[in-house]
């Protein structure tokens, strides 16, 4: 289950680009690897994130994983719903489980990320 219109990182984040706004989350594959997600720690609105640097942490019952920003930009919005319903990351990783929206500094970075085919190949090898 890898949506074709998104781009991906090797660390299993996905990104959707609408104009200069990027929506970011983790993939279904990542959610399954983590198991039941119990907590998501996200940056405050207004913070800047840098491509491939950590922007948050996702915790499951017995694992913890850093979140890496696919793109550089400024955080416009965070998914407040995840505070009370972190299980959305497992249930709807590409929809209700989104994490942050970012005003993108350089849209060119988007093209440099993995496309759906490339990401599928990556997870098939894993």
């Amino acid at each position, binding site marked *: 289950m890898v949506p074709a219109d998104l781009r991906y990182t090797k660390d299993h984040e996905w990104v959707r680009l609408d104009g200069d706004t990027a929506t970011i989350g983790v993939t279904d594959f990542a959610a399954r690897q983590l198991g039941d997600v*119990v*907590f998501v720690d996200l940056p405050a609105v207004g913070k800047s994130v840098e491509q491939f640097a950590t922007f948050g942490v996702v915790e499951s*019952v*017995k694992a913890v994983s850093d979140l890496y920003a696919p793109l550089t930009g400024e955080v416009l919005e965070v998914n407040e719903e995840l505070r009370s319903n972190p*299980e959305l990351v497992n249930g709807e990783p590409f929809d209700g489980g989104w994490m942050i929206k970012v005003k993108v500094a350089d849209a060119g970075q988007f093209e440099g990320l993995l496309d759906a085919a490339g990401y599928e190949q990556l997870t098939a090898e894993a």
Partner: protein
Amino acid sequence: MSASGPRLQPTIFELSKPGRHSDKVPHPPKDALNRLPAEHRREHAAALPEVNEPDAVRHYVNLSQLNHAVDTGFYPLGSCTMKWNPKVNEWAARLPGFAQLHPMAPDAVAQGTLQLLWELEQILIEISGMQAVTLQPAAGAHGELTGILMIREYHRSRGEDRTDVLVPDSAHGTNPATATMAGLKTITIKAATDGGLDVEGFRAALGPKTAAVMITNPSTLGLFESRIGELLEAVHEVGALAYMDGANLNAILGRFKPGEAGFDVMHINTHKTFSTPHGGGGPGAGPVAVNAKLEPFLPSPRVLREPDATFRLERVGERPASIGRIRSFVGSTGVLVRAYAYLRTHGGSGLAEITDDAVLAANYLKDRLADSGLFDIPFPGVCKHEFIASASTIKKTTGVRTLDIAKRLLDHGFHAPTVYFPLTVDEAMLIEPTETESIETLDAFADALVEIAREATSDPETVKTAPHSAPVKRLDEAGAARNPNLRWRAEAGEWTPCPD
């Protein structure tokens, strides 16, 4: 347990009835608290449970019976050394002379305990091959912090700014967490393909910034690090120091002395190697042994033996080079009394036998599992006091995971091994039988594992839903973490039925 088996219990708060109690102390004068200023007084009494002695005793006896323990059965929890806890230890720690001694009592009235502590230090010096020991740290991780802070102070005293701690990827999580607490940076070094230290990997990372390496030997895979000599040389060549995590000391008593081999500092877990009971998670004690380089930096106060054979504690500020205090008072003396009793019981020859027997038991069990052909044994050579088995193949063929096997073992009356540790082995089970189990127990445990592995094929569902005979079934751990209920409040328990 009651004749019908262990029973879940309501919380002690639910047993509470207003006014119920058993008188334990006299009533104070009515005006005893009148002199306290109003702003300091408690307005509402704490809502503590009101129960009488039979209520309280039955509650805690019934609760205790929901536990697996060394006293009730085999506990092969790898890296924890769940050996027999001799009963004489408990007697010793409860002697009024030890138990009722106040920690600020003057040295003159504490000579018995001070002598015991001093003698215990001498015994640990001999076992570790080091120069000096502090008994202050309260646990292994606390000992790690003590050791790493001493290393930092050593470098500082030489005007060197070293920031890196090299740790193999198979290490206990406490090692990197300790480095962080000591303000240092962890660099993780992957293990070599044979599971041992990747000396070349370490060499590449060693340099003028290296403060220390932290090595568990034998490793968390149960393997003696046979290249440790080379590594220690390389470490010292760049001016760094070597810390040994002594979690696995049970495997090397009388066979390998870390200090003689070139380690600079190590901690010892009395609750693993020296039979002080684990107490459901603690207390432990984590004495730290050091060589001459680090002795000046030991925490204060130390126990000193005077020329007239009396003992005393160091005075405040007596040794300025010390890293300072790492806890209040002298240490977990009650735990140390138990360790001392154990060490005296076994003596030099007995300690060497402990290691021989522990390693023999682990190898016997490993071979039995290897012979079954059902489990993966990733490191088939000689192990030390514990070994790794893996359910990797079982998982591929049946979908049954290590976790399921661990849970099914509970139905057989055994505690599970340590599972999913070290993190470097797929579907890992770390099995440590210890020297105090009989061959009958080892055989019964091997038989149970073999039976479960067969059951994984014949009836995987039963294994995947185990345990079936424990007091409760598998728990909703995700729910517990998402909506934490961490304390009783009158309304908090209502969403789940109270056990009757």
